[in-house]
């Protein structure tokens, strides 16, 4: 975890610091005397994040032993790819609705997982029936219309 801690620690220090010094004073109104200000709790949280993340960075920096971590370059690549796919999924659903968008996005994610043999047919069946079924369930069961 040392590598992961050395990455996440400074990022969180900056995040907490930016919140406490810059974001919260702009985004939260000052309170009345005798009452707890709206900015109080988020500021405390931001300071706690920054201070503890600083401790974590120092501890990770001083640590000699490397403990196993499953966060590596491939995780970052996977996360970036997932963000792109999710962006596509949102675009498909927003533009074509839950039926067409749902069918295409379910099939897209499934085929990106490289199904083999009969798995492809099962994937196609699920990709078609699930959005259609969900649409009908939302309409008849919950009285809600999915776009």
């Amino acid at each position, binding site marked *: 975890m040392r590598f992961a801690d050395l990455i996440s620690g400074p990022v969180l220090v900056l995040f907490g610091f930016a*919140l406490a010094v810059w974001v919260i004073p702009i985004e939260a109104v000052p309170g009345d005397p005798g009452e707890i200000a709206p900015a109080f709790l988020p500021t405390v949280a931001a300071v706690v994040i920054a201070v503890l993340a600083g401790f974590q960075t120092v501890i990770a920096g001083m640590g000699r032993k490397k403990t196993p971590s499953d966060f590596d370059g491939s995780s970052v690549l996977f996360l970036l790819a997932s963000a792109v796919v999710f962006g596509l999924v949102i675009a498909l659903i927003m533009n074509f609705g839950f039926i067409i968008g749902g069918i295409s996005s379910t099939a897209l994610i499934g085929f990106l997982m490289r199904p083999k043999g009969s798995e492809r047919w099962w994937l196609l069946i699920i990709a078609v029936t699930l959005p259609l079924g969900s649409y009908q369930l939302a309409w008849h069961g919950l009285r809600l219309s999915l776009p």
Partner: protein
Amino acid sequence: MDLILLGIQDALTLTTLLTVAAGVCLGIVVGAIPGLNAPMAIAIAVPLTFYMTPLAALAFLISVNKGGSFGGSISGILLNTPGSPEAAATAIDGYPLARKGRPITAMQTALGASVCGDLFSDIVLVLVAAPLALVALKLGPVEICSVVIFAFAMISGLMGNSLIKGLIATALGIFFATIGTDPTMSMPRLTFDNINLVSGIPLMAIGIGMLALSEVLIQIEIYLRDSRSGAKEAVEIQSLPDDRLTPRIFLAIWRTVLRSAVIGTFIGALPGLGATIAGFLGYGAAKRASKNPEKFGKGEIEGVAAAEAANSAVVGANLIPLLTLGIPGNVTSALLVGAFIIHGVAPGPWMFEEHGRLIYSMFTAMIIANFLNWIIGGAGLRLFAKVLAIPKPVILPALVFLCITGSYLNDQSFFAIELTIAFAIFGFLMRKLGYPFVTFIIGFVLTPMLELSLSQAYILMEGNIAALVNYPIALALVAMTMAVIVRAFLRGHEPGP
């Protein structure tokens, strides 16, 4: 007494029974699939309960949890891959027992022990919740504020690998919970002029994103990595031999089941400790008490029963802190807070005064759910085992669609979907970097209570922290909080459950 009878009457309707049965089935199926678990199913299912009555909704969600508690053991026993982390201890003896040609005996033992453990903790919940709630109702804002802070310290110290990361995750949860309208001055706070954020971040966007969708992402990554490295993931469930657990064998291990049920109930009642640790403690206690400890790990029925009774006993007991103090002890309880609020019920000790009938009907439904779990689980054992063969490229994309639909149904806006996806990515990062996402969610859920009690306490104490000496309970809780933090630091960063 009238409330209790009315509650029982409400629960004994066909609608409630069908809802409970559906919840148990869903829970077993989801629990049986490796990588999926009951909290994930609850997160996705909460939006489906909008149009149910509060009783049906709560009974459904609690039944999913009960079914999931047993379902996790199926894949642990048949594949040595626990469906959920809490079933890891069950697999220690369950898998060798299955390899000995007795998979049905192993699963029936797990089912029987799960139902007994769960039933025991439900009975304890029914007996202790009301008296404890009466005591809790006497607590003022200063004490409530101290209880919440103590819960944060305890949960942060017990979950994950390090107290520091637990506290950071809690602080992040608190920060995200403060986005929205400030409760004291009713002014927008941290909304960045986005109208969608004025009412705050919906709990379900966090629940579905961090619990369900981020777990799906993890599973997809594992699948892709395994398929690249050539690791064989294919699961083949052969026809199961026709072995059977006789009542005589099960009754012979009643002491083990009872001991584990007591351990699981105690662990479940404490916020922060989960079913996984209960399962291992129950298993360890059974091994120590056994005349043949050398048989454990080699397919001992007692080992299966001990682990399963203990981890299932956590399910009912977890509701004790929620119903008596309004504090969710684990992630399932945190999601139930969302379900309670959706149905206009604020969870906490006041529920016994304001919604007594609902509470007792919920208790009745919980006890019914145990029996239905036993009946449905027993009858469909072979069928439920078949869900293990569903290929990942079919189930995981379907779950992504269900998560997106669930988050849309919750808020009926595309913004909710965007938030869900953002929290899925955030949750993925938290898991990978070793930050306990459970403490994040509990921090998020408890912040409104913390902020309200804090502002009331501030007024009561006139801003003078020294006035805390007039509140001995709060003072003791503050001291306990300090003790928990200092102890956790002194113990170093030992791996948690």
